[in-house]
């Protein structure tokens, strides 16, 4: 009964996350929007788990673990970039240009 609306909410949140990634230039903010997308997907899994079995919740468990690891490493990379380029504006970080 709540499956349809939950999926709708998840879709909207995911789209908002994508919008954030496309709109912002600051690396950390973009990263936060990616976390938002991940959470939208978690909502999808949990909603479906209600009707399809506990495997969905187990998957959410794993997503959270991996998201944590990813956040740690990602932020470490952002720190390193900031130390080198003194900026987090992704438009200025374009060494692959050409």
């Amino acid at each position, binding site marked *: 009964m709540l499956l349809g609306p939950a999926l709708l909410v998840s879709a909207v949140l995911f789209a908002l996350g994508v919008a954030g990634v*496309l709109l912002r230039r600051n690396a950390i903010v973009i990263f936060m929007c990616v976390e938002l997308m991940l959470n939208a997907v978690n909502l999808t899994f949990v909603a479906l788990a209600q009707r399809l079995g506990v495997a969905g919740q187990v998957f959410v468990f794993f997503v959270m673990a991996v998201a944590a690891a990813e956040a740690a490493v990602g932020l470490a990379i952002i720190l390193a970039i900031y130390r080198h380029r003194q900026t987090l504006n992704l438009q200025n970080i374009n060494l692959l240009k050409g």
Partner: protein
Amino acid sequence: MPGSLLDALWLVPALPLAGFVLNGALALTRPGAKRAVSLIGVGVLLLAFAAAAGAVVGFARLPGGEPVVQRYWEWLPVGDLQVHFALQLDQLSAVMILVVTGVGALIHLFSVGYMHDDPGYARYFAYLNLFVFFMLMLVLGASFPVMFVGWEGVGLCSYLLIGFWFNEQINADAGKKAFIVNRIGDVGFLVAMFLLFRATGSLDFGDVFSRAAGTFPPGGALITAITLFLFLGCTGKSAQIPLYTWLPDAMQGPTPVSALIHAATMVTAGVYLVARCGVLFALAPVASAVVAGVGALTALFAATIALKQWDIKRVLAYSTISQLGYMFLGVGTGAHAAGIFHLATHSFFKALLFLGAGSVIHAMHHAYHATHAHDDAQDMRNMGGLRHQLPWTASLMWIATLAISGLPPLAGFFSKDEILSAAFAQGAVRPIWYAFWAMGIAAALLTAFYMTRLMLYTFHGPNRTGEGARAHLHEAPWVMTGPLVALGGLTLAGGALNVSPLFGGGTWLHRWLEPVTAAADRLQPAVELSRATEWALVLGAVAVAALGIVGALRLLKPEALVPARLAPPETGLGRVLWKKWYVDELYDAVLVRPVMWLSREVLWKVVDARLVDGLLVNGSAVASRALGWVGSRLQTGEVGFYVVLFVIGVLAVLGTAVR
């Protein structure tokens, strides 16, 4: 033994091929080994003649007279087309191989003396052997493709040998001209082959000829087209109108080459083709008439040109064209045996004439070389009275002259007479043949005239070679004179091959060739003449020949000639004849120049330079660069931009699911 020689039919062409390989190897590695080259070059020809004779004897012993076809391997198995590499020995090819190897052997022997001082000795014999190989392939082939291999091969060797002294532009040009003009004819041959295959489903002689009567309605458009295309090939290879212009230029090659290729063998390939395809031509009377008509016209036309040529070899070249015209008149009329008879006798006396001329030229070269003179050794105006210095050559050449004029009992008389009688006889059925006969008679008159002129200017009258050089003129060595004697004997006796019943003879050659010509004769029966008419024609021909000879002796004054470098230019009709009726100039203006213009201005400058180089080659490079530039604009290095593209891709994928 003869039976096994028939099985070893492949030896006949293989021996000259081996000669080519060995001499070729010697030419590349030890060109100075003249003794070995002579042994190999002449030896393989003699062995080939022996093998041919043995095979023919073995063949003659077989009952029934059916052709013997030896299949060696499968050459082109392509769908419906099954072509084997096969050789066929029947009565017609038997005659041809004996002529080719026999006269060829004599000419090889002559060459040993003639080419002795030439640095390209080994190369010469290699090419000459290769030529004999291809010629034998041509006449022994059991199917059109195998014959075509030989056809093309002799054209190649002709090119190689005409341009043998390729260091001079004029020789190389002559070789090119021969090859290119021949190729035009070859297109006709090819088209005819395609049409024949489409209609009959095979290219083997046996299959095609046995199916021909059933497949083609007599006089139909298709068979007429096929035979006319075949004849186009013949006009190229056998130098008839309109593709004869290469033969006089081919005289640039060594004289024995002219004797072998352009008198005795290669140029007769066209006649052989028409005789071989007798059944096809019998089914297309229009084409046969064209063959006979073109032959008669060429005979007359070439004879007129020969009247005013000063180069001894040019006279003989036009004479060859003219005599070939006679042969085509013969086979076009349906008198295949007569045509082949004339082919054989002509090879004897024309080879003799050319080799004799070679003997003369050899002596003249020697004389001019000794005195360091630069006069033309082949111009008759520089000769005269040579019968004192070259008695053997003179007498033998007189025999040949009388033979070609058609005086009895020499070989030329019997063969020429038979052709003219057959043409006259056909006139009763189709009147246009009377015109052909008339042209033939006129050509006979001119033939006698210009040959006597040649003999007169060369061997009689005062000598114009020059005081110093005269002393160096002498007869050729025996290695050269010997073949001349042999050919003289053949010229004298050759008539015995096919004596007409008019003279109590048994028409031996006619009967020998009967199994081959029977099918064609059934479709195109010969017309009989009354005894009285035949005698009248014979006497008329002899009278004409005598008139020509006597006329030349009376009208021409060798005393009035001056050496070539002092001679005044020709005027009036004489100039037109000397300039060969301006045919070469016409071809040049109408064909050669436009093609060259087209090639240079259009095909090179526009198609090649602008279209291919500019548009396709450079254009594709420009297009690549443009695409590359577009691609490089995508590499901004900005993650944000990449994410946008990524999202667009995702939307596209999802879009397909949403549908």
